[in-house]
């Protein structure tokens, strides 16, 4: 009898646990939620446009303000309001299911929106526990209706496309992306200077077109992706680019990568100085003439000199642009100074000090032929 009652208790406990373990009151079929993949914002005629892209899991996922092809994989819906909460309310009124925001892959802000509402929206984002803080943030100059329509018609998600492009560029050392978490941290600090990737449409595809400069709480400028190698060398993890170096009638193509970057910070007589040392590696990939190239030590030294000059100029131009054009430290030298002089950093106004700081660049190159290719001396048969 005692044994039986023990089993009964175990069975009741298991049944009880089964009810709770199934998610209690939160148990919900995935089809009953509208899973947002992208959210985007724009401002037009003093009205805020709140876009939400979601995958069409079921037949009949449609609303009034929808872009995307009939029966397409992704749909976009938009709400319009005088402020952010109003636009969200407007969006909610069109939703036929409860939205789920924990799965969004990208947040897109038009430059117009970011200029005015960047801080407000990001604080709203931070306050909502449902959003993933590692969501990617990008800006755009494109019209969002056109952007969503173009990509959704191809049965693609704008958010996923941006996420994948950013991952690829980050992994190959061609760019650097920023998550919302990092942006909010920067916005919450005493000094704010940061870059956000800006996407656009190129040949009917999404592409990185540049970087939006955020200073204080607003977007203040734009750096086009063309000619931004210096910026990527200073910001990205393991940056890599190809450079063509003309030497003795041959155009050599080199793979150039930054191997080490060290920054020394000095603060003497209220003068701030940074000595940035960049060590590069350049590997000869190929030339535009028939081998042999006779690429000897002298050639290596000459090419190293050309590359040093070229890249040093790119880096100095990047620093000048930050100090003179934008007067914004998106190069994160504020962190370098804060780490080395924490007490002094609290006492100075970095916004005023950064443009005056003396920043020296030292570039060194190690040139070699890449992999097993030997372009030095050998006899052709």
């Amino acid at each position, binding site marked *: 009898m005692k044994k039986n009652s023990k089993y009964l208790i175990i069975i009741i406990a298991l049944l*009880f646990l089964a009810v709770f373990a199934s998610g209690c009151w939160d148990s919900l079929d995935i089809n009953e939620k509208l899973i947002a993949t992208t959210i985007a914002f724009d401002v037009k005629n003093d009205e805020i446009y709140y876009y939400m892209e979601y995958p069409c899991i079921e037949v009949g996922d449609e609303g009034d303000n929808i872009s995307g092809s009939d029966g397409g994989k992704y749909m976009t819906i938009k709400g319009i309001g005088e402020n952010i909460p109003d636009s969200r309310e407007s969006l909610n009124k069109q939703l036929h299911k409860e939205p789920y925001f924990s799965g969004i892959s990208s947040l897109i802000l038009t430059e117009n929106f970011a200029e005015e509402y960047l801080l407000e929206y990001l604080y709203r984002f931070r306050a909502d526990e449902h959003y993933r803080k590692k969501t990617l943030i990008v800006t755009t100059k494109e019209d969002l209706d056109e952007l969503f329509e173009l990509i959704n018609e191809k049965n693609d998600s704008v958010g996923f496309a941006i996420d994948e492009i950013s991952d690829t560029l980050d992994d190959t050392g061609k760019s650097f992306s920023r998550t919302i978490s990092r942006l909010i941290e920067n916005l919450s600090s005493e000094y704010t200077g940061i870059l956000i990737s800006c996407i656009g449409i190129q040949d009917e595809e999404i592409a990185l077109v540049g970087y939006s400069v955020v200073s204080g709480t607003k977007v203040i400028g734009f750096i086009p992706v063309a000619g931004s190698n210096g910026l990527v060398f200073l910001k990205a993890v393991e940056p890599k680019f190809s450079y063509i170096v003309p030497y003795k009638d041959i155009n050599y193509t080199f793979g150039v990568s930054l191997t080490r970057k060290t920054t020394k910070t000095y603060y003497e007589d209220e003068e701030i100085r940074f000595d940035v040392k960049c060590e590069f590696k350049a590997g000869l990939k190929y030339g535009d003439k028939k081998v042999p190239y006779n690429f000897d030590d002298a050639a290596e030294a000459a090419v190293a000199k050309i590359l040093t000059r070229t890249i040093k100029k790119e880096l100095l131009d990047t620093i000048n642009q930050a100090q003179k054009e934008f007067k914004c430290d998106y190069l994160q030298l504020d962190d370098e100074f804060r780490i080395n002089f924490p*007490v002094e950093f609290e006492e100075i106004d970095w916004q005023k000090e950064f443009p005056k700081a003396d920043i020296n660049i030292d570039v060194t190159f190690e040139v070699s032929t890449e992999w097993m290719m030997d372009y030095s001396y050998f006899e052709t048969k």
Partner: protein
Amino acid sequence: MKKSITNRQIFFLIFLALTSYRSIDMPIIIARSAGRSGWIPIIIVSLIFGVVITIIIKLNNMFKDKVLFDYGQEIVGKFITYIIVCYFIVYFILIGIFLDIKLVDVLTTNFLPSSPQYAILTLGIMLFGFAAYKGITNMARLFEIIGALFLLVTVGICILMLTQGMDYNILPIFNVSDTNHFLTAIKELFIPYFGIEILFVIPFTTINKKAPRVGFATLLFIGFFYILIVEGTFMILGVNNTALLNDSFIEAIKITEMPVIERTDIFYLTFGLSSLFAGMMIVFVVVVEFACKLFKKVKRHVVVIVVAIIMYILTLLALNIKKVDEIFDSFFIYLIIISSIIIPITLLVVAKIKKRVLEKVKK
């Protein structure tokens, strides 16, 4: 069956009792008080409580096979012992309510937003009650497994955080201007160290000779464990985000990428919640142990049911109080000072004096 636990079990009991909820809360406390230099106050408080735990263990070791209720009567008499035990019952019930609130809060905020609080609480209290009924020795065995898994997973995730985070978020590791906030940080850090008084219900035997050293080392280890959690969270989120986000440690885990596992937060909380449940179980068992000593004629399962009902009602009431956290924080520090510092030191001093007097009388 003789009630005794090994030194390893002591390590896991203290570790789980202390780190149960506060491992989630610790980065916020440090970010809001001492910032990047927060590791220093953590070490200072660990050393303070390391000394305190050594005192409690020494006291227990002076009276082998006895617990506070038994040896207290020999040291300060029956009346004062009853007052001390009643005080500890109230103290641990308050800790229990605090941990219950935190458990419900973590679950509803991060995982079960639509589930009513009373449902989560019902399940929790039933589980804690069952564990309390089984007693401290059975629990100690279970905690060896839970504690080892929790430790392994948390340290593993923190190491991933350190490798994936930004080092400038934790640098400089010492800032002179942060020292102004050290006193506030130390005061705030007293609360995460509540719970070492659980040792008052554990009878020590001859196998616990090295327990004082184990206890001190455990507290130092907990200090380093907290530092690892704080620095990992700072590296991923930054100090400002850590200070401003709720459950920032879990937010940092969500951002951390793990091979194969997509939802790192769910993976962590499988083990993290087991630690929170373990912390609650310890508190529950301590209340039951004290109550059983106080009401010897009442059967253990009756005591368990009564304690469960009291905890359940009080927690439900506390859940409806606004800013309950602030209320707890405002008086907990005083209770901790009384429980962890004043009572053990007084008992040890009186016991030592009595022992010397008795030795002199014998001579």
